[in-house]
């Protein structure tokens, strides 16, 4: 990527990030009525208490200064206080973040491990048995609603077969000492195989629920890219000059077919971030997604706002990185 191109892309990134925060802020304006009255709900509050909460939330200021304050504070990591938890919103979010990161990373790895090899294989042996089965499977995979898949897996592996736990992140055996707050990593550091297995058993179903639809999309994209690349002139040329098939596949096909898969993977991680909210709610996974859903129902607006912004910023940056990676893999796209 040339310097000029990079500066241009960074400029675009900043515009989008700024716009994202404007839009996230604007969402709060969509709350029906006065957020403070809604938040206080049935609790009896004196007019002074209401006024003080309004002041704390900055609702007594004009919209423009409220947005200025929101942006200024957000850049400094201050998203206000969670009325419900009586603690700063950022603390509550950071506490739940590791569980969500662990789940998202696990799901992404499973999806990549299933989707890409299957897509490569199906594309190379087009119309073979594997291709037909995988194509059918991926079609079902992109059509199945995630929340229903979660219940089916739960019904099969937990309710009927009693193989895996229904919910939660760990058993009663006690968590390993927190170092990274990722249970799998922490139990390895602590040298506790029992805790590792327990964490893995809890992680399996939610991660699989998120991974299967993502694997389906990755498989389709990789397969399509392989078929496209195999038709390209340079592959025909490589065949004509007598390169062995494994060499052709390794040299040309793999590299060129992976570029679109990377881009789609970044978009699909965005889908995972949304899917997290549903899957974490179903499996009682103590992560950010479940926190947001709980926050919606307890009308904890500052928390919802902060989480939405965090998700969006993560997604925008992921796409930026994927874009750069794709440019590095495929020089033609740099133009």
């Amino acid at each position: 990527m040339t310097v000029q191109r990079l500066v241009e892309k960074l400029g675009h990134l900043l515009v989008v990030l700024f716009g994202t925060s404007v839009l996230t802020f604007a969402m709060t304006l969509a709350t029906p009525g006065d957020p403070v009255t809604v938040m206080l709900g049935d609790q009896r509050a004196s007019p002074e208490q209401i006024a003080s909460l309004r002041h704390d939330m900055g609702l007594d200021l004009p919209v423009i200064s409220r947005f200025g304050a929101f942006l200024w504070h957000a850049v400094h990591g201050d998203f206000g206080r969670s009325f419900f938890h009586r603690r700063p919103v950022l603390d509550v979010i950071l506490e739940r973040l590791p569980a969500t990161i662990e789940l998202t990373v696990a799901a992404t790895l499973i999806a990549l491990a299933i989707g890409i090899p299957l897509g490569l294989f199906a594309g190379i042996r087009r119309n073979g048995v594997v291709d037909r089965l995988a194509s059918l499977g991926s079609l079902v995979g992109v059509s199945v609603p995630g929340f229903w898949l979660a219940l089916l897996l739960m019904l099969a592996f937990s309710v009927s077969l009693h193989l895996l736990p229904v919910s939660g992140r760990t058993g009663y055996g006690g968590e390993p000492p927190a170092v990274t707050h990722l249970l799998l990593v922490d139990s390895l550091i602590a040298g506790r195989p029992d805790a590792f297995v327990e964490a893995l058993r809890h992680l399996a179903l939610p991660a699989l629920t998120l991974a299967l639809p993502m694997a389906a999309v990755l498989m389709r994209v990789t397969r399509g890219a392989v078929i496209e690349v195999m038709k390209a002139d340079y592959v025909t040329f490589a065949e004509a000059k007598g390169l062995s098939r494994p060499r052709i596949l390794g040299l040309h096909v793999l590299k060129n077919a992976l570029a679109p898969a990377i881009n789609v993977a970044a978009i699909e991680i965005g889908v995972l971030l949304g899917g997290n909210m549903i899957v974490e709610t179903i499996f009682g996974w103590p992560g950010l997604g479940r926190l947001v859903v709980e926050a919606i129902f307890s009308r904890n607006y500052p928390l919802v706002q902060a989480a939405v912004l965090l998700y969006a910023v993560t997604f925008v940056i992921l796409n930026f990185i994927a874009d750069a990676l794709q440019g590095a893999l495929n020089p033609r796209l740099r133009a």
Partner: protein
Amino acid sequence: MSAVTADAGLASPSRLAWRSFRRDSTALISCVIIVIACAIAILAPFIMPHDPADADLLRRLQPPGWMEGGEWAYPLGCDQLGRDILSRLIAGARISLGVGFAVVAASTAIGLGLGVLAGTARGALDAVISRFADILLGFPYLVFAIGLMGMMGPGLDNIVLTLVLKEWVVPFRIARGETLGVSRLDYVEAARAVGASRLAIMRGEILPNILSPVLVVATIRVAHVIIMEASLSFLGLGVQPPAASWGSMVADGREFLADGWWVSTAPGLAILIVVLAINLAGQGLREAFDPRLA
């Protein structure tokens, strides 16, 4: 082969596309399934065997007709309040399909209009609309929908509003891209040269030539929107009880997986069948109408 070549001289591209679509049996079967589902949704009040809101605790979690303890008057069994699942499924079809088609129709109209406008006007107007679209794309779909629904509160109107706000970007980007491509072609130049107004060019020259890729993608998007509505309803942000949507029906059965697996299974299967049919039909349309995309 020779027959196809002979046809090509007589038939328009869209007629040729329909011809190839009709040979695609998977896509045709999918279309039949979609038509049946729509008919069920439209005729719902006349074909529901029972009142979908009629609760009877004596029939609580009654199994489907073919199982022991079930009766054929309630073929798919009853839910945790003893309501007939088949009737609720039929009533829910109205909401799930209705939201799907309404959101995509509104989004396509908005996206198409803005896309053609941005593509022909270019300059500042294009930059503003396109940046706004980029910003909306910065939100993961479900995060945006759940966030905005969380602020606005649950309800069917809010779901439609939220999804249209996010969905119009998809047809917009396609329409804008196609418009930019078509604008460079000779016949648009010719129309411009003979002094046709901008509106006349947009309506007469550009719109008819960009319509098919936009409509093909719109069909597939119906599937996506149906899943989004179901996801929001599953979380309790959609239609409020006792009204049924397929998503909220799956949620109803969540607590009763062990004693009544059929409560969640039937509505989930309904979503899967309809979404699968739409995806297959959309794929067929795409291959027939826009071989570049296939």
